[in-house]
């Protein structure tokens, strides 16, 4: 049986266990009338039984699903003739791939060697065996759990405490998932990045001004070494982000001010959700819009003015990204402006300042830390944005500050390096993880600073 079907079977057994456990509890108590002699309400005995059915069996099944591939492959590889088994790792991977293809019936070669065919047979055998064993064992474990609890159900069993303990364990575990995710991100990116820095020195990567990640087929090829300097990528990212912020900050901030200080209730209730729609549009749609409409329009406009504009200019990607970021800036600044105490405004107005003078000279300076924080958050958003730059910015790593030229970004390069089938030990693929590490660290730093600034600012007025 397949894993989803088995999961279903186990859950069915657990549901059955629930009923059985509940009935059993009532029976040992001596009927529903005596339910009060039980330590817990009968439903908790049911839940306890169901938990004992489902949890061990599902854990077992999960382990099997996770490790089935590697276990079966290891068994098959161990049976290969020694001359194949002792191949270097990457060639062995090719052989394993051949075997898997043979098993799946994809690209079956008529001239497949008998060794591969034999190995494929064994692969099928082990896989089938594992499937059979898991089909038998997982439900058996579930039934075993049922029987175990059934025998131990007694009026004094503290079923509720057990069940509540299990729930507590689950929710504590849930809350650590966030930590595990962060740890997973840091470790996986660090690990691959270290492998990258073994072949490319750290300082060449951080300070190099040339980026051309080639994989050489022959050692004497031109550009065989490849150049992995991230400076052009980073300047490209900053250039596009700068253009984006030039659009997003004035528009976002001024709309936030207008909405917070001037707009009528009705205008606010219409305009705010409309701006929020901009934040809800998927980035792939922005990318399409940039590539289809904005980039050609800018190129044509530039041509009319006699300027040379690349067809994938940084300006186009930056403009569209700026539009995407407007709602971030405006809704964050809106919160910040609304948090400025009314007394400050009234004091200023009472001295005879006009509304705009109050805003410029009292409200904005008071809200400045919060606004800076929200702009930093928006910058981190711009740096990490991927789809717009993949679709609308180029791939040429130019080191330039001219927004009319094509530049590439960190995220766009990560995508180009990793999309499609790649061998997993060339510097070219590993470079993507090094870039990912830089990206993660930069955005993390920006976020931490921004959150800190915003929090400090909030405390000031609370």
């Amino acid at each position, binding site marked *: 049986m397949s894993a989803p079907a088995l999961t279903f079977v186990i859950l069915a057994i657990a549901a059955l266990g629930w009923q059985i456990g509940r009935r059993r509890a009532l029976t040992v108590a001596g009927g529903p009338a005596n339910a009060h002699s039980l330590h817990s309400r009968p439903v908790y005995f049911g839940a306890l039984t169901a938990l004992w059915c489902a949890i061990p069996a599902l854990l077992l099944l999960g382990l099997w699903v996770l*490790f089935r*591939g590697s276990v079966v492959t290891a068994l098959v590889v161990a049976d290969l003739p020694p001359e194949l088994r002792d191949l270097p790792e990457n060639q062995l991977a090719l052989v394993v791939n051949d075997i898997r293809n043979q098993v799946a019936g994809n690209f079956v070669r008529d001239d497949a060697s008998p060794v591969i065919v034999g190995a494929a047979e064994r692969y099928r055998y082990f896989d089938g065996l594992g499937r059979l064993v898991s089909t038998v064992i997982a439900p058996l474990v579930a039934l075993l759990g049922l029987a175990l609890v059934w025998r131990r159900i007694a009026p004094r069993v503290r079923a509720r405490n057990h069940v*509540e303990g299990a729930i507590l364990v689950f*929710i*504590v575990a*849930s*809350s650590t998932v*966030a*930590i595990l*995710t*962060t740890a997973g*991100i840091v470790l*996986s*990116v660090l*690990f691959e990045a270290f492998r990258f820095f073994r072949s490319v020195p750290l300082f060449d990567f951080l300070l190099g001004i040339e980026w051309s990640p080639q994989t050489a087929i022959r050692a004497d090829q031109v550009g065989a070494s490849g150049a992995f300097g991230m400076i052009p990528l980073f300047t490209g990212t900053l250039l596009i982000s700068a253009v984006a912020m030039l659009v997003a900050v*004035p*528009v*976002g901030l*001024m709309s936030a*001010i*207008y*909405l917070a200080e*001037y707009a009528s209730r009705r205008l606010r209730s219409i305009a705010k959700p*409309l*701006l929020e729609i*901009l934040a*809800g*549009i*998927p*980035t*792939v*749609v922005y*990318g*399409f*819009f940039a590539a*289809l*409409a904005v980039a050609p329009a800018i190129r044509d406009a530039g041509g009319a003015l006699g300027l040379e504009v690349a067809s994938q200019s940084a300006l186009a990607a930056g403009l569209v990204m700026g*539009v995407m970021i407007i*709602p971030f800036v405006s809704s964050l600044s809106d919160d910040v402006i609304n948090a400025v105490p009314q007394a400050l405004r009234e004091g200023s107005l009472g001295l005879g300042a*006009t509304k*705009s003078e109050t*805003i*410029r000279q009292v409200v904005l300076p008071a809200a400045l830390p919060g606004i800076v924080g929200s702009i930093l*958050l928006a910058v*981190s958003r711009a740096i*990490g*944005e*991927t*789809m717009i730059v993949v*679709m609308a910015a180029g791939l040429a790593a130019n080191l330039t500050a001219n927004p009319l030229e094509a530049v590439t970004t960190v*995220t766009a390069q*990560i*995508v180009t390096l*990793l999309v499609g089938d790649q061998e997993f030990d060339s510097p070219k693929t590993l470079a*993507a*993880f090094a870039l*990912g590490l830089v990206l*993660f660290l930069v955005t993390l730093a920006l*976020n931490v600073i921004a*959150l800190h600034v915003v929090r400090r600012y909030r405390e000031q007025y609370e």
Partner: protein
Amino acid sequence: MNSANGARRVTSTVADPRFQARLRRRYASERRFQWIGRIALALGGAFLALILGTIVANGYTAWQQTFIALEIHFDPERLDPEGNGSEDALLAGDYGGLVKAALRKAFPEVRKRRERRKLQALVSPGASFYLRDMVLEDPSLVGETRTVWLPADDDVDMLFKGHIDRSAPEGSRRLSDRQLGIVDALAARGAVEKRFNRAFFLAGDSREPEISGIRGALVGSALTLLVTLLLSFPVGVGAALYLEEFAPRNRWTDLIEVNINNLAAVPSIVFGLLGLAVFLNFFGLPRSVPMVGGMVLALMTLPTIIIAGRAALASVPPSIREAALGVGASRMQTVTHHVLPLAMPGILTGTIIGMARALGETAPLLMIGMVAFIVDIPHTPFDPATVLPVQIFLWVDSPERAFVERTSAAIIVLLGFLIAMNGLAVVLRRRFERRW
């Protein structure tokens, strides 16, 4: 005395022309400031209108597709040469030949080999699948002659939708003069018609725009979202419950909190790197499957759900908890029987918003290989699949003009789902929001 003095000074200041000039300047500046605000707001609205307008203007034509009517003779010679009528034989029939024969019969004057090829290029290469499906559904068609509406090639479709300029020189046009003549002749016979584009909703991806559809991507998106929901909802609610209701305030819980806030702002592509390194390379899970895509997106939406969940739990007044504890409920009973149900609308709202974001997400899925060209429609979370945003991304890269229209149409469908989900969230909030 003093006050009289003051009053005189005020009148004199107000009458002072310099004061008046300054006041005018200040009021002008006030008006300018307001106008800047209005313009900023209008710009935001204009951008929104421009984006949606561009997409709708490009995409609405994709609901229709040009069809060409042909007299198809279901020639037994070609379909079932052995005459046994079995399904295998019918599957292997030469349906392309039927189309060719029908075109030849309709235009006997086209003789030259090259011109014939151009003639055949007017009908979609996918037309043979249409005929095959017709015959498989009704094998008695073999031997009959029917008028069948077949999808036209994407170039013909574009011509009728006005995207091909007839006045352009022949060399720079996708259709030659001769082909234009034939198409016009067909149109004059009433054999060209725009019909509802069913293939767009019922077919998988294809290299031919006229027979490509979004069903595969839609099913892939649904499977991925299902996995995301099943993983992130229980874990997110659990984490929110623990942090809000049970956790002591100490270094560890502070760390978790800071972590969650930071995770919410980590670029989505970094989650893709995590999925690639951990799920694919370490655990060896298959590439391109909704299961892995759902796992990655679940990690990504978790912070959203946790933050929304905590806010919803925090808004339940303490009196509810105290009352439950007072009548003897355990802490867990208090939470599961009273607090959680009251917070559920808020949690669900947050979850729906998180799901909407996951539905529109592309970058992390590129990392785990959901960017493959997949024709088959997936059935389980372990079948290779793609999702709607990635399908859009793939179509943007295709050179055919007709894909622009289909990309826009796919975006309209995607935006439709997003609007529906966000609308549901708003309704939920309005309906069940409770002020204590």
